[in-house]
């Protein structure tokens, strides 16, 4: 990221907000007594369900819900007897909420300066994609209206929620989606920021900072799959688009950048369409009969298998379909993404475009396109899209393409996008609104006692911001962050308080030396805090020099002592070593600086590194040979 790019995104009017999810480190799940943990053996049993949209509390159907009903998926859930009970199967109402999880959520909300709810209400957030067998996620707003400090300003925290995690997706092919239920119902906090982030780099920075604050509790889970971020992005003139399930902070910056550029691309596409001024029509037809003998193998094969082929023309889009709208992605990709998800058509290629260059045999020939155009009643230059699959799905696909083309006139459609492996995104669903929220009729409201909140407030851990303040003048903020990220800030502080050693050197030992030793195969877990305090006390007392610390650490790790490494070497010995080495040089080194460097090195080695650098330097500097050279130089 360079300064220029940052300015560019500010000019685009980038607005970005995060929804940061962390699993809580509890023994049991949120609404039942199953143990938390993931399993990878063969599932013990399976159940099958289907989801139907229901009304919201305010009497509306949610847009996403209806779209997902259109996809008509059969949902299979894999069960393990030891990690899933009838609650997760949606065959038993929820049990009393996990108090431990609730406490952690309150603690996190307090750390984020939120106002804690006086009474919490369990809500149902509808998800008809099947990821939760009930068709909704039980979620609770625990705190609202908070903030964190970031780069000298406040980023607002809209809300902190406690909720249950969803299933893990195993596969999604055609009309069957398979989920594994072990992760289901694991307690999770969701931290929602306001759209106060202005650049892609800030997005990952804020995410990192929230992560640091949450980890300060010591009660969030670590490791793959325990952290997931949703990133909301919009630019001036664009729309809020949510990128779901980002597994790593490192990806956020790129995703935000790509999404901002995608929205910019879609807006310029809209300009082109508007400039052309033509009314957009999307005539469609069934045309399987035209491809019985097609030179395009996939289409011919589909017709032979009794599948339908549908065509839709998009006049007014010539030359636009394959224009790049974001790095590596075109409007045609947008269409294919939508069809893949909503119409459940995932045989590649999902769509065939008349204006696409493709090798012979994989696309219909000019005469075939001509026949389709005639049937559609469109001109020679108008692009045509073909889609094949079961009749009903093809119908859905054609109307989805028409809908997406219609949306192109508006600019950026309101949607949720999924993260693909390469850091790209693809359509996932229409962005849900507040209408998918519904009170959980299975649970009663829970009052949060002020005394309980006060008790948690009293024992809050130190936030990263406070650490930075504490270490101001001692360490650079980046070093503090490094200590926090490596979870050794507490250790750092304790050793520092107890030994009064050099903070920079201590931080270096903790963040660089110890990891390096671990990489070299040293069992650094055996190096306990007590031993470190003793070592640094020894060091601060001038008993062991800096350079010997790594060796001492290796000794500690293997349970041996390091007294013989101590700096109890007298002046006499050092001076003698200087003299001996000076004689050995015997005037061969003429340059004073070179001679100085050589002598310091040689003496250190000869004294087994037990003498501190300062003492060796002093002894070498005061040797008469050097004085002599210096006088010569002056002359």
């Amino acid at each position, binding site marked *: 990221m360079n300064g220029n790019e940052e300015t560019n995104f500010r000019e685009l009017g980038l607005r970005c907000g995060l929804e940061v999810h962390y699993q809580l480190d509890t023994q049991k799940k949120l609404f039942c007594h199953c143990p938390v943990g993931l399993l990878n053996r063969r599932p*013990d*049993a*399976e*159940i*099958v*369900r*289907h*989801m*139907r*949209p*229901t*009304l919201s*509390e*305010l*009497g509306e*159907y949610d847009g996403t*819900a209806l779209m997902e009903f259109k996809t008509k998926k059969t949902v299979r859930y894999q*069960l393990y*007897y030891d990690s899933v009970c*009838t609650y997760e*199967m*949606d*065959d*038993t*109402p929820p049990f009393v909420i996990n108090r431990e999880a609730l406490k952690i959520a309150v603690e996190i909300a307090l750390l984020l300066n939120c*106002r804690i*709810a*006086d*009474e*919490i*209400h369990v*809500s*149902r*957030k*509808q998800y*008809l994609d099947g990821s939760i*067998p*009930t*068709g*909704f996620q039980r*979620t*609770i*707003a625990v705190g*609202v*209206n908070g903030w964190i400090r970031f780069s000298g300003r406040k980023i607002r925290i*809209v*809300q902190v*929620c406690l909720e249950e995690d969803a299933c893990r997706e195993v596969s999604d092919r055609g009309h069957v989606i398979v989920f594994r239920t072990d992760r289901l119902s694991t307690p999770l906090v969701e931290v929602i920021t306001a759209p106060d982030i202005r650049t892609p780099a800030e997005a990952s920075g804020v995410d990192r900072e929230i992560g640091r604050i949450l980890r300060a509790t010591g009660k969030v889970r670590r490791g793959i799959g325990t952290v997931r971020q949703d990133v909301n992005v919009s630019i001036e003139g664009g729309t809020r688009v949510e990128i779901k399930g980002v597994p790593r902070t490192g990806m956020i910056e790129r995703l935000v950048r790509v999404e901002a550029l995608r929205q910019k691309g879609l807006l310029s596409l809209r300009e082109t369409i508007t400039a052309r001024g033509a009314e957009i029509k999307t005539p469609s037809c069934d045309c399987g009969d035209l491809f019985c003998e097609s030179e395009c193998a996939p289409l011919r094969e589909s017709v032979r298998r009794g599948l339908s082929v549908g065509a839709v023309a998009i006049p007014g889009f010539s030359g636009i379909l394959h224009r790049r709208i974001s790095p590596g992605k075109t409007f045609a990709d947008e269409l294919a993404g939508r069809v893949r998800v909503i119409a459940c058509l995932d045989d590649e290629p999902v769509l065939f475009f008349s204006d696409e260059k493709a090798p012979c045999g994989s696309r219909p020939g000019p005469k075939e396109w001509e026949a389709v155009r005639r049937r559609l009643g469109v001109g020679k230059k108008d692009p045509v899209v073909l889609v094949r699959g079961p009749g009903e799905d093809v119908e859905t696909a054609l109307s989805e393409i028409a809908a997406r083309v219609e949306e192109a006139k508006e600019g950026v459609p309101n949607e949720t996008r999924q993260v693909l492996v390469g850091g790209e995104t693809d359509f996932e669903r229409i962005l849900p*609104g*507040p*209408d*998918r*929220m*519904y*009170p959980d*009729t299975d649970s*009663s*409201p829970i*009052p949060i006692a002020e005394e309980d909140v006060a008790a948690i407030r009293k024992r809050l851990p130190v936030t990263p911001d406070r650490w930075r303040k504490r270490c101001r003048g001692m360490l650079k903020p980046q070093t503090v962050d490094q200590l926090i990220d490596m979870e050794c800030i507490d250790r750092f502080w304790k050793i520092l308080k107890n030994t009064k050693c050099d903070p920079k050197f201590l931080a270096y030992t903790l963040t660089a030396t110890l990891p390096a030793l671990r990489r070299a195969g040293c069992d650094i877990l055996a190096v306990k805090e007590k031993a470190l305090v003793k070592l640094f006390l020894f060091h601060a007392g001038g008993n062991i020099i800096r350079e010997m610390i790594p060796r001492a650490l290796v000794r500690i790790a293997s349970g041996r002592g390091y007294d013989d490494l101590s700096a109890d070497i007298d002046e006499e010995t050092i001076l003698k070593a200087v003299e001996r080495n000076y004689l050995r040089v015997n005037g061969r080194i003429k340059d004073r600086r070179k001679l100085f460097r050589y002598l310091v090195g040689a003496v250190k080695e000869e004294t087994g590194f037990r003498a501190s650098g300062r003492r060796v330097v002093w002894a070498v500097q005061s040797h008469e040979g050097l004085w002599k050279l210096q006088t010569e130089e002056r002359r």
Partner: protein
Amino acid sequence: MSGEALEGYRGPALEVLRRFSVRVWSDVEIQGCKGTFRGVVLPRSETADDEHIVLKMHNGYNIGISVRSVEHIRVKGYREAHYKIPESEFPTDPKKPNVTLLGTGGTIASRLDYRTGAVIPAFAPGELYGAVPELADICNLKTKKLFGIFSENMGPLEWITTAETIGREIRNGADGIVIGHGTDTMHHTAAVLSFMVQQSPVPIVLVGSQRSSDRPSSDAAFNLRCAAYTAAYGEIAEVLICMFGPTSDRYNLLHRGTVVRKMHSSYRSTFRTIGDIPIAMVTPDSVVPLKKDYRKRRKDRDVVIDTRFDDRVSLVYYYPNMKPDIIDSLVDNGYAGIVIAGTGLGHVNKPLYKPLKRAVDKGVSVIMTVQTLWGYTAMSVYDTGRDLLEIGVVPAENMLPEVCYMKLCWVLGHTKNPERVKAMMLEPIAGETSEREPPNGYVVLQGGIPEVEEFLGRHLL
């Protein structure tokens, strides 16, 4: 300001809302010592405390705010919710069978009730069509709301009304009857209807749901579709319960109304035929009979409705150490019949002999069933049984206790003569007792056993 406008609020909360002229559904900004909240004021559950105001924030989440922290409330608007399924007229097709859906309440058609915070029954044909449009592909549906109550509140009046309505609908040409019913006492109603509605020419199908229809994973729609298909096209002209077979969305089972029981408090596949196999498997487009001995659908309209009923009957679940006063008090309170769910083959302890003898002597009919649910009474095997027979306790073969209760009420509605009562109780009317129990009538698989696990691994639960 009316109490209605502040639904559910009492005490301090009500006072604060009144002070700032806030109504339920007001869009407000609440300022307090701890910050500002924006949202719509929701009705409060009557069972919840009187110290919090519930706000629906604009992101859809609900949150409770302590009235003690409120300093000021500014009303910014009003946004009343109209919880309504999009209604549209149910389409009719002269080629399709006519089915009447009777509504009694229960989870099958329910909506949120802010007053209690739970779900309440709701029911209208247009709503039903709006929520389950697939029904129109099956039949022409006419709906009649009889009551809107939870099934535990069903009683003789409701049973009689239902039976009489069924009679009228059949005579008026219905090709099948579906009854939406809460699941808790669905098997009680199924039993009593089996006695009150005899020789029906068409299927009478009770249906409900274990997951309310306000949840995406609800079983209501699937159950309704299966029930409608059974009523419209099924050949089994009996009182049936139509509910999930397995917990997966795969097929429903049809259970005969007199041998079925709710066996799990929350599972979808809670209804099980006891002591026999279910009558049929059903999907939204097929009924596959598993049994052959059922009453077949007829063209005539000659249904017999017999609703005579005496509710002075009690069902006593025996437990060791039961005291004689339990039986005595029933007799002293004028009960005409006692059904006992006895242990094992139909036993109670010795101290009950005397009060039971007294009951029989006073003309009270005492009928014995088994609390094991599966199996027959066999009172000649042990001395206890013989003693009880001697006293005049009538063993009811393999009739389920709840079914026996319903039958005894119905029989006592016809005669008080103990000998007649005994004869009628032992004469099966709607398959409530059977001469033989098939070997596959008692299949309660136990998890963990290798062969069962192998089965579960290969088939959907």
